[in-house]
């Protein structure tokens, strides 16, 4: 099984995600699955900006799409993004979780079931507590977790809630996160 990375972010997340992704090497192959609360029905503009800045493919995750390497997938606005046991995506429009749809918890938890110890979970800036229980699930299933340092995060509520719910493996400043992900993936 190839590993995967899941990232969650809320307010301040556009910039934080851009920083993390652009810090990864151009040849980075591990798929990256992202939930960003964007509060709009359209992320295409953001995705094309992002895609022109980094070396690998950036796209909205499609219903039943197979997860491929060298690709960054974003949850479509207004749908929960789930990982199925056969490494495909499924979408759902059930009720909001933590006032959010897409919810970080939903992606993290379902990815943990499938990728187990091959998963790296990264939680960045945000002003709610989405992602905390998802990150906990990643740990329970043997994965590795990274939380952005609340002291330097754009908004610290989300990192604090995550640290409160389970002890992350690493608490890092934003600028050091890409480096750590690269290291962890190289060791795999």
């Amino acid at each position, binding site marked *: 099984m190839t590993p995967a990375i899941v990232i969650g972010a809320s307010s301040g997340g556009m910039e934080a995600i851009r920083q993390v992704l652009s810090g990864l090497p151009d040849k980075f192959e591990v798929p990256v699955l992202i939930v960003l609360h964007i509060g709009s029905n359209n992320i295409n503009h953001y995705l094309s900006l992002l895609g022109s800045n980094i070396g690998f493919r950036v796209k909205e995750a499609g*219903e039943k799409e197979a997860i491929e390497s060298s690709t960054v997938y974003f949850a479509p606005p207004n*749908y929960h993004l789930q990982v*199925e*046991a056969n490494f495909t995506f499924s*979408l759902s429009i059930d009720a909001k979780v933590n006032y959010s749809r897409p919810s970080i918890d939903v992606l993290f938890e379902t990815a943990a079931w499938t990728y*187990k110890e091959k998963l790296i979970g990264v939680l960045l800036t945000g002003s709610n507590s989405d992602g905390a229980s998802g990150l906990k699930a990643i740990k*329970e299933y043997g994965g590795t977790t990274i939380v952005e340092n609340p002291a330097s995060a754009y908004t610290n509520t989300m990192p604090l809630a995550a640290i409160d719910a389970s002890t992350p493996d690493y608490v890092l400043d934003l600028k050091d996160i890409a480096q750590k992900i690269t290291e962890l993936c190289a060791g795999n």
Partner: protein
Amino acid sequence: MHISQKTVDTEEIELDLFLQAIHLKYGYDFRNYNKAHLRRRINQRLQLSGLKTISELQNRVLWEKEFFQTLIQDLSITVTEMFRDPEFYAAFRKKVIPDLKTYAHIKVWHAGCSTGEEVYSFAILLKEEGILSKTRIYATDINKNALATAKQGIYSSKEMEQYTRNYMEAGGAGKLSDYYTSKYGSVLFDQSLVKNVVFADHNLVTDGVFAEINLVFCRNVLIYFDKFLQNKVLTLFSNSLTKRGFLCLGTKESLQFSEEEANYSDIDKKMKIYRKLTGSL
């Protein structure tokens, strides 16, 4: 605590057995629904009932009929809204209505209609286009509680602001409030809208064709099914549709890569409006 590899695989086994048990005992077949989604819903029910494992839940559901009703509610997602995806309705007005106007009679099937918001929305659209009276509508679902709400046509007035916005964006010709009366925080939709609607229990997985249909709406239902079940249900629609009949799916759903793809042409690719080809079937 680290759950060992073994425990994790045990959960997958439990889930399969659980779905099989429900099928054998109650005839509802969830075995080809998306597993991640089922597992999330079942875990929530475990927490609420203070149970630890799916096996314990299986025991309860086999021996307590009433508990199964709770579970059905858990497993069917009824989240819906009026004029959901307004651009879809706008495209429908422009690209499908002109054809429908030439028909003597129209038969419509809302498959997975949930609590009925989609049915009232569409009835309003047909009324404004002057063709509601020649249309017969079948609105079906597996969730009996949802169907009961649909029949009543009573919704929370809190939603009306959003629905009014959707209605306008969908190209509404009047005011949404012309179609309902408000009372004590609820609104009741004009029952003449659903005079020609039959609300009925129909399971897309286990039930078959029941009428010749000109237009099938099945929006945001197939996303809960795996590929195999999606193909099966799409075949059911093909067998129900008349020649040149229309099929409307949810905006994240598609005929692309399905076994039925070759039997349809695109009317609006983005809004997932399809039309059955003359030569097919």
